[in-house]
């Protein structure tokens, strides 16, 4: 599975629909001044992969991921979609799959795969064993890189088991 496209709308500092199409190979760099929204993009990826802990997304409650502006401008919901490209796959399987997560201000959460409503369990199942689950070694947060060296022996064991 490769990350083909990420679309955010109403998530953190992105009130308007914003789409990033990534090349399937090579290095993509995300650059910009302090506070412009770069780490919010990584939060969006973790969120759509099913992350349930607000703390990991630097929020106190999950509702805080919904855009709220200085001018009182509000949006009704936060939505992130990710289009993944499967590699190899059998003939019949589609090459692409789209996963979407939505959270309404009233608190209702929706998860969709290719436009069809599913449960969170289905999304977590999809990403199991691929190394892209939300806590995987493949997503390294800002300021956390030295955690891999400072963590205790038992936490390190959990990390290695995920990779095994």
């Amino acid at each position: 599975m490769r990350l083909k496209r990420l679309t955010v709308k109403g998530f953190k500092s992105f009130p308007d629909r914003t789409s990033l199409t990534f090349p399937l190979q090579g290095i993509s760099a995300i650059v910009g001044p302090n506070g412009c929204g770069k780490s919010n993009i990584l939060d969006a990826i973790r969120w759509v992969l099913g992350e349930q802990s607000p703390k990991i997304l630097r929020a106190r409650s999950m509702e805080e991921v919904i855009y709220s502006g200085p001018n009182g401008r509000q949006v009704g919901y936060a939505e992130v979609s990710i289009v993944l490209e499967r590699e190899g796959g059998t003939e019949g399987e589609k090459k692409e799959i789209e996963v979407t997560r939505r959270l309404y201000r009233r608190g209702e959460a929706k998860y969709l795969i290719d436009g069809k409503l599913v449960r969170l369990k289905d999304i977590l199942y999809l990403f199991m064993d691929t190394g892209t689950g939300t806590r995987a070694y493949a997503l390294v947060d800002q300021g956390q890189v030295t955690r891999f060296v400072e963590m205790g022996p038992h936490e390190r064991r959990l990390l290695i088991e995920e990779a095994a």
Partner: protein
Amino acid sequence: CRTRLREALDGINRQLERVFPLLFEGGSAKLDLTKEGSDILEKGIEFMVKLPGKAVRSLHLLSGGEKALSALSLIFSIFFLKPAPFCVLDEVDAALDESNCVRFSRLLTEISKRSQVILITHNPRVMETAHRLFGVTMEEKGVSKLVSVRLE
């Protein structure tokens, strides 16, 4: 489960033998089971690092940059063993000096031949190695927008 863990350790250690000296121009690092606990399933995993020309030290004596680079050698070794479909690294190069940034970028380019790498960075030298650049700005305060960025 026992053999799987053992295999993963051996696999990562084989990669570390190659990756660590590339990042540090020498030295070595390896993962090992801790001495405590009798059964393999109760043991934790230690990470031992030997920097070129320095005594083997415990990890907490390492400098900020040495810790970051050692951590990256471990992350990349796991990556080479079991390439995840994509990886996202958020300012992992912040503590690195010029020459370590160059070695880091070189290794990243090698990884990106097999996996998709998404990198958030402020460092112009590291940006140069990217194939594609996404600029994020906040022209309207508080509202993030994408702009296309050209490398000078």
